[in-house]
């Protein structure tokens, strides 16, 4: 216990030293610097896509890394967020708070429904239920042509307009302005999710991941807490999906396909689940590699798959751990990856 009466020492997140210290200031500085430099390294829309999938991956990591809920249906919420926002934007409503508010409400409700069905099942059953719900929502989107455009996608999506007092209306038609906007949302999402992980709620989610029964016997309504986490993750994924629709001015049917659910799990796992920087790094590597490989060979998904496999085998704690500790295959002994 340190002088100001707060507990010190931390492993998962939670009850740690309070107040900013050098390491966390350095981390924040690195993240902001990376976000600022990113568009100088690559085409602006690829950079924007990385920010969008970074948000999606961080939201998914609240489920995977913190709560230990391996959902394979998160694209349902990404896509639904895209459709919700895209529908308004394609029909002349461009007010930014309205568009994002609607996307959050729609995806939050959808996540509540899917969560109610699946949370009480564990392990493979939870995975399969989230996956099945994803498929269900995909076919609903496929069939509901009047709203989603079906196979052709929801076209005619405009970018929203931010009305600010004194400044006036800011349009996002310039891709650089849109990148800046997406990057700000990325940073806000990261700060929000880090706060969630470090809160009592996040600490209990992590506890329930490690020993569900013990968490219940300490008085915690575990299933309800997990449901709330599922709703938060779904709503934040919905924001990412909304941004994706705005970026390309269309919401393709692929955005709600379960491939997306698998990709986002890849991003989380190759980046590392122990922090929110890991999934963001995973999104960067995945999107960037996807772009790079697709230029080199028409069978590029093979290479991407090989990369994911190699990461799983040689760096099971994720790429972020490369920066913080020596990997097992370098130090000559094999540690078991955390379950």
């Amino acid at each position, binding site marked *: *216990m340190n002088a100001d009466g707060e507990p010190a*020492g931390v492993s998962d997140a939670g009850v740690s030293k309070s107040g900013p210290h050098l390491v966390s200031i350095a981390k924040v500085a690195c993240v902001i610097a990376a976000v600022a430099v990113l568009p100088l390294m690559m085409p602006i829309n690829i950079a924007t896509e990385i920010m969008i999938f970074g948000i999606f991956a961080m939201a998914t990591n609240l489920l995977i890394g913190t709560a230990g809920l391996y959902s394979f249906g998160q694209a349902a919420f990404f896509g639904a967020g895209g459709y919700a926002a895209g529908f308004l934007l394609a029909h002349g409503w461009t007010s930014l708070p309205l568009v994002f508010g609607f996307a959050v409400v729609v995806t939050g409700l959808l996540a509540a429904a899917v969560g109610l069905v699946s949370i009480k099942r564990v392990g493979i059953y939870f995975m399969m239920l989230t996956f099945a719900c994803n498929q269900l929502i995909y076919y609903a989107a496929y069939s509901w042509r009047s709203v989603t455009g079906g196979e052709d996608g929801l076209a005619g999506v405009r970018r929203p307009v931010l009305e600010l007092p004194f400044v006036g209306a800011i349009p996002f038609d310039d891709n650089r302005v849109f990148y800046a906007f997406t990057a700000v949302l990325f940073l806000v999402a990261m700060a929000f999710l880090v706060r969630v992980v470090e809160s*009592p709620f996040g600490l209990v989610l992590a506890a329930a991941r490690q020993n569900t029964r013990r968490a219940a016997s300490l*008085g915690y*309504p575990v299933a309800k807490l997990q449901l709330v986490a599922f709703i938060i993750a779904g709503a934040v994924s919905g924001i990412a999906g909304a941004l994706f629709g705005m970026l390309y001015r269309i919401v393709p049917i692929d955005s709600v396909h379960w491939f997306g659910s698998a990709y986002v799990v890849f991003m989380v796992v190759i980046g590392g689940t122990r922090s929110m920087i890991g999934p963001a790094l995973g999104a960067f590597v995945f999107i960037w590699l996807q772009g790079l490989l697709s230029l080199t060979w028409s069978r590029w998904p093979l290479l991407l798959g090989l990369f994911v496999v190699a990461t799983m085998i040689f760096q099971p704690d994720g790429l972020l751990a490369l920066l913080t500790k020596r990997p097992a295959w370098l130090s000559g002994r094999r540690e078991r990856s955390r379950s």
Partner: protein
Amino acid sequence: MTERQIVLQADRLSKRFGGNTVVNQVSISFTRGRLHSILGPNGAGKTTLFNLLTKDLTPDAGAIRLGDRDITSATPDQVAMLGVARSYQISSVFLEMSVRENVWIAAYRARRGNPFSFWRRAAAFSQPIDLANACLQRLDLLRIADAPVKELSYGDQRLLEISVTLACAPDVILLDEPTAGLSGKETARVKQVIRSLKDEFSIIMIEHNVGIVMDLSDEITVMNRGAVVAHGGPDDIRANRDVREAYFGR
């Protein structure tokens, strides 16, 4: 003289797994402020009885009352919030957290912290900290409070398990084999701790160390093959022939 108050009571409780009746029509009551041990050979249904009392398992028949409240259909977290805390036979600590975090999580809920609070950092809540530290102090764990639990010895993990149970600030404590797998020195330490808890809590204990049971218990219930075979004070039990049969197989 007023009658002793019943704090927890099971009425004809039964639990079957497939064709096996593991707990068979068990009626048992626990008196406030006493240490009540449950003895019996392996497979007697002691731990299953615990799981029924805390609602980790749902009974097939029978009723459970906590004070004057029927908790037969409550959930484990509700039972915990009504003041029943337990330790597990197999250590159930959170391995990827520090010692202090383990105890903090129990203390936070015991102090009626809102589990849905996701907008403030855990470190900003100061109420549970005194309770958490007191519980660590009691088991002499403050010295390793910031160590990751997975680096602890098995003995220290068992002590932490008890410390977490205390941090629930309960009325009733269920201890499932608190000295299992401990060294002689650690066993003595746990025995001393349990003795010191006797004045504050109602304690129900499963324990195979007969010496500890005889020394500490106010009441003893003996189970065999899912049923209660004897009940009484330590002297009654020591003299009981059925108990010797259950224990020594003849």
